[in-house]
């Protein structure tokens, strides 16, 4: 489905990526207001490790570098520290735009492969939506074993002490392995999520249908 949406978007915006971002990305309508001062890139604690720090991402959007932006790992690296938002003289909600871009790239199927933040995000979502409560034991183990069995055993061993302490303090229960706790109205919770998904799909559809 995602590639179809992608195709539709490409056709709809015909090389005007700024407009596409403005209309589809969360807080994307702010991108045009960036004045390229570079304060965000200079403030971002992780900026030096990104392929493209925020200022550059905004310039690339205006320069129509669609594929490069949407398949970039950069916005997935945002830790939501909010340094950039606090400092941007133009008041851009940069953190939110970063997450908006990440989400949009995933939605239309251009997200980078094997990006750990993205993987963890998906894992967390799946874990949460199952019962309406996060199952920390399963989530933790899932995370340990995400890079294969041998690696998982190694990580799990090294975190053994932490796990024991959490159990002693009743912060985690081994019983969670068997099903685990959840919300009381599970059916209602799932219905709610389904409705939200429908609304979102309709919104995206509306944007891609209308040419």
């Amino acid at each position, binding site marked *: 489905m995602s590639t179809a949406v992608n195709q539709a978007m490409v056709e709809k915006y015909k090389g005007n990526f*700024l*407009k596409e971002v*403005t209309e589809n990305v969360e807080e994307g309508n702010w991108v*045009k*207001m960036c*004045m*390229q001062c570079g304060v965000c890139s200079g403030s971002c604690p992780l900026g030096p490790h990104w392929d493209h720090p925020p*200022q*550059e991402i905004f*310039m*690339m959007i*205006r*320069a129509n*570098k669609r594929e490069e932006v949407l398949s970039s790992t950069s916005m997935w690296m945002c830790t939501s520290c909010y340094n950039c938002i606090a400092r941007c003289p*133009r008041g851009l909600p940069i953190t939110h735009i970063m997450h908006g871009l990440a989400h949009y790239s995933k939605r239309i199927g251009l997200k980078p492969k094997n990006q750990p933040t993205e993987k963890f995000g998906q894992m967390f979502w799946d874990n949460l939506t199952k019962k309406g409560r996060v199952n920390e034991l399963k989530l933790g183990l899932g995370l340990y074993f995400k890079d294969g069995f041998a690696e998982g055993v190694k990580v799990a061993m090294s975190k053994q002490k932490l796990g024991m302490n959490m159990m002693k303090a009743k912060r985690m229960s081994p019983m969670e392995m068997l099903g685990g706790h959840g919300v009381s109205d599970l059916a209602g919770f799932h219905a709610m999520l389904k409705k939200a998904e429908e609304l979102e799909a309709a919104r995206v559809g509306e944007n891609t249908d209308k040419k």
Partner: protein
Amino acid sequence: MKIGGYLCTGCGIGDRLDTKSLETVAVREGRIGFCKTHDFLCSQAGVDMINADLAAEGDDKVTKLVIMACSRRAKTEAFNFGAVPTARVNLREGVIWIRPEGSEHEETTQEMAADYIRMGCAEVKAMHQADASGEQGKNNHIMIVGGGVTGMTAALEASKAGYYASIIEKSDRLGGVMGQLHKRHPLRSPYQHPQDTGVAAMIAAVEADDKITVYLNSKVASTSGAPGRFNVTIASSVGAGTQAEFGAIVQATGFTPYDANNLPEFSYGKSANVVTQLELEAMAQAAGDGAIKRADGKEVKNVVFVQCAGQRSEKEGHLSWCSGHCCSTSVKQAMYFKDSNPEIETTILFDDLRTPGAGGENFYRSAQDKMVTFRKGKVSTVEAAGSDLKVNFKDLILNEDTHMEADLVVLATGMMPNAGVNIDAPKDDAANGEVKVPVESILNLQYRQGPDVPQLVNGFADSHFICFPYETRRTGIYTAGPVRRPMDGGQAQTDAMGAVMKAIQAIENSAIGRAAHPRSGDLSFPSFRKEGCTQCKRCTVECPFGAINEDEKGYPQYNEARCRRCGTCMGACPVQVISFKNYSIETVGAQLKAVEVPDEYSEKPRILVLACENDAYPALDMAAMKRNESSAFIRVIPVRCLGSTNTIWIKDALGSGYDGVVMMGCKKGVDYQCHFVKGSEMAHVRMAKIGDTLSTMNLESERVAVHEVAITDIDRAPKLLDEMVEVINRVGMSPFKF
């Protein structure tokens, strides 16, 4: 004639000094009528005492004053006795605040105070009451050269203030460049959309105003005289000329757009679809609020603006400066397109986007909101391929060479001032075979120093962008708008108001013979003793303000209202025949001779300090306020400007046994700080030649030092004096003591 001395014993003066003996010094050695003491001289009671003596009748009437108290820069209100010649002896900042307490210092400190009293008494004797010359009366009429928005605003403002104005416009219509625009930048909050230029309404207001006369198709053929009595010949290209008298002049001659034919790399001239900003205005005007069309009739769908085209560049034939308005102008023009059709692609390629002025940033933001694309990029070339264009540029954020397609390219070219003839240009251009297009003069001043006002940098006519805006180096003539520095229409109108205020001030001052700042209110003016004059012309050359003409015999001709009272002419005169009533070779000469010079074996050297009263003297005062200790051997004399320093003072000082001379003037050069623009520079040039005098006297050259001192050099100024003390310690006492 009776000289009254008044010694204040307040502020610690009475505690630190033996005032009884100082009174004796004033009367016996200073030979003044009397010396009264008061323990709080600047109080009402103290001032009343002085005023009573000034008002007395007969023999008791006091006509000159010696105030022995604080610095001349303190208590100026209390000790303001109008035109009465007054010497201020600085015993507080000049003596007790810079000298340490303790019995071992008492003797030298007391000597210092006594010397300053002798100096004050000698100075006042050489001073005379200053009276205005009455050279001109009041003329309420302002000539405004240039009928653009700057000139028209100036005329309307003058009229509103109750003065008359005549606009001299060389073309056949009012309005200037603003009159050729489709719309202008917004002038009021929220600064979001281009607005009507308002030129038509302004022209109507000018025409309806019975205090304003407009001369179209006209030029200034000749300007002579001075503030309050400018005599102007107005030449008309269509009819007879006119003769008129004006009190002051505002020059609002604007700018000429840079010739884009100098930019072949952008295909200007090669493609009709590469235009300048001004050409786009005409296209927008033709379109009204509809679609803007190219020369070939096609509607523009994709426009690229190239900022800084041939500007802010050191390349041959380019302008090195920023013209100030072009970023906002491109922002405005991009809106012409976006407002008519949001689907039109508009890209502004900029290096640094600068939108000066209160609303600039909002206007920029508004364009971003309207989806104008801003890309930081430097354009290298524009290629014309058929009717379409390819703009090659380097994206400075992504650091890559790239290009864009466009169907119209707009070049943001700069402005060149219409300042007339550069009177300071070297004259030998013709010699190296270069053919120069002669520049037409704007004012045709019948001044010995040249036909137009001096230029500051890059041909813009001003004297100091920050300290003295609008003021040229020709008193009574003020520049406003882009002829003064690059700016947009809104700033030019603000400028016009400022320049008119200055013009009115000049009219009012000259009517009563008063000086403009920095010696505002001074009624004295320089005059020369004709019998002594050798017609050397030094004064006419060195006067920074072009105040002095020459008569047919080659004698200087002073124009009081053109003069700023700096005294540079007095300092320049090799035969010392120039003087002011209250400031002359004698007023300073007598002071330096009044100092008691102890003999060679006393170990008490004497160092003469000539300090500019505008910067160096206040810096020394402020150092004293911080109780910065100074040597007891310095004797400071404030001068109007270091430019007024005549070499005779230095010779006299060295000849009468001073061990060193320190001169302190303001910063000179292009970023000068001198209140009289060139005074300090002239003094430096003059003093560079003092070495000859020193070597004929067999004295070490280090005994004379010339420094540039700013008013903020509070810690440095006293150190410079300490340095001279060290020099004397090293080279020894002067052998010229008697």
